């Protein structure tokens, strides 16, 4: 470098030789930077790539050499699909059904309850509106862990412990304020004029809602629906805290239990069940991650 500097020092400032040398230097720097950035991204992402890759490879192989390289293809890790891993486990398909119920329930309630509520808050004047808005915000500052214990009390009093319905109601209560808040944002973004012109043209409020407003918030509703489905499908804390009875297990309890029972023993079974659990999420994710990015900002996970 120093030598290069001396070499060009005597050249006039705008000479072709000097320009060419310096330009080549800049190009080399730029290429190095690009190389460095790609290397950084790839190396940093390795745990994620290897982790999810392992989930797939390990599920279909006998063993992994050095913990990484799959050896011997097999589907025996998936035998849990037709037989119980041990007597202790509930039926897999019933567990899956429970998980699906929770996910679909969350999706439906977010669409059917959060959407109209958000619309009303965004568009109509009524006594108590401001109080409702303030309450939504204040509630949001109460983290889940604060309410967990009293929710246990409430569920037990209502006889809803150990039931999917109980977990569903608890999750709905905690998610609704956030969902309403995000949906309200979508409605707020639609200009009043559009709705006004609909009303002026003689449509009723309901018709404008259906024909003019809803089509415009459809992407928002879709994002919300997918987000709620994945959120319900993936739920861990409330499920393992409020549900002990095996008939009401979801896949979270199932996989959780396999970790506890078989640790150090059967990674094949563990990765296969985990893969089975994540598969719907993975499919949703691959096709809709662009949507999901818009809701992430509203998500609360650390």
């Amino acid at each position, binding site marked *: 470098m120093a030598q290069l500097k001396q070499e060009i020092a005597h050249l006039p*400032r*705008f*000479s*072709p030789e000097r*320009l060419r040398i*310096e*330009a080549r230097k*800049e*190009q080399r720097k*730029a290429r190095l930077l690009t190389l460095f950035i790609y290397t950084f991204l790839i190396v940093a992402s390795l745990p994620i790539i290897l982790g999810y890759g392992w989930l797939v490879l390990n599920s279909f192989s006998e063993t992994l050499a050095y913990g990484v390289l799959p050896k011997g293809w097999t589907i025996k890790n998936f035998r849990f699909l037709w037989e119980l891993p041990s007597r202790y486990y509930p039926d897999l398909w019933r567990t899956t059904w429970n998980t699906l119920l929770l996910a679909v329930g969350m999706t439906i309630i977010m669409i059917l309850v959060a959407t109209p509520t958000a619309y009303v808050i965004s568009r109509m004047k009524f006594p108590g509106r401001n109080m409702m808005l303030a309450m939504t915000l204040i509630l949001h500052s109460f983290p889940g862990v604060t309410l967990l214990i009293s929710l246990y009390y409430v569920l037990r009093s209502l006889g809803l412990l150990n039931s999917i319905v109980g977990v569903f109601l608890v999750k709905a209560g905690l998610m609704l304020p956030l969902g309403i808040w995000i949906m309200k944002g979508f409605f707020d973004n639609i200009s009043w004029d559009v709705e006004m012109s609909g009303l002026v043209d003689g449509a009723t409020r309901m018709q404008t809602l259906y024909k003019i407003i809803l089509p415009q918030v459809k992407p928002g509703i879709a994002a919300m629906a997918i987000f709620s489905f994945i959120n319900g499908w993936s739920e861990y804390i409330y499920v393992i805290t409020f549900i002990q009875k095996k008939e009401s297990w979801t896949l979270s309890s199932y996989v959780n239990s396999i970790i506890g029972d078989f640790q150090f023993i059967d990674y094949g079974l563990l990765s296969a069940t985990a893969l089975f659990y994540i598969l719907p999420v993975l499919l949703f994710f691959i096709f809709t991650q662009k949507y999901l990015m818009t809701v992430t900002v509203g998500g609360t996970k650390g």
Partner: protein
Amino acid sequence: MAAVVLKNITKAFGSVVAVDNISLEIPDGQVTALLGPSGCGKTTTLLMLAGIYQPTRGEIFFDEVMVNGIPPKLRNVGLVFQSYALYPHMTVFENIAFPLKLKKVPKDEIRQRVQDIAKVVQIDDLLQRKPAQISGGQQQRVALCRALVKNPDLLLLDEPLSNLDARLRIETRAEIKRIQQELGITTILVTHDQVEAVTMADQVAVMRNGVIQQYSSPEDLLLKPANMFVASFMGDPPMNLMEAELSSENGKSVFRCGSELKIPVPDAIAAALQSRRDREFILGVRPENLELLDEPHELAVPGTVFMVELLGRDKLVDFRFGEVALRALVPADVAVSQGEKKWIRPQAHRIHLFGKADRQAVPLAG
């Protein structure tokens, strides 16, 4: 200082061609304007000169040195953006000093040079403010300072006046011109405003759809438009343009424009057209080149005033001949009123003809 040459420059973004095979020689020490409507490729050309875009094809020379592939920081150009792009978190001083700081110029020298250039541009009392705390005109000067402080070989201005109000625009126009002459710096100006181009530039390149339409002195743009686009783009109020068919009536040649207007052809033009085969043209004449007479004249057309618009010092007098309109610009003190009958005489040497098919200017004697 640099003379800049562009040789067959093309820039494509994917399948969209922004600049299409343009060649241009820009003389040393003068102001050259790239003029055209938005999307014509003028800013793309400017960014290629700065080194931010690389041309897809063709070569760019600064003083006979090919600069293709040379990054912006080595080109030693100063660039003033339309939005000024002043860094909002830096003071005016820090903004101007930024290029020097990156070049690792010693602190004392930076201070000296910033103060010197700030004095030239007359903002030396604003150095400690933030960009948000000064007016648009002042921000514009700061941006100019930042471009000039590194003693660039080439100064590039992208719509430098478009964010200023009308009065400030006139003031700043003169100011930039003064600074440019004081420093003798080769300057390239991108603008969509013909007044800006004509008043500031020594020569103007009119661009449209990535192609240079005409490259000439500002006077020639107005007096000798190379094609119909330049003719219609330049001048305010715009040139009267109409389809005209050369025919003869009672042994005299006339231009038939629509069904109701017949303009007698001056002899010089008739002579120039004799060798041409085509009979159909686009005829253009600027409103200021139409004289209004009270009496008949052999080269004049009779017409009834349809409407009169007062434009400050001038009046725009509107005539209708069926579907064809003719507008004449006369001093405001000329008495003319709606419904009045006048004879309109185009100044013979100010009539422009363009081929109907190719829309290129038809060469007329004189």
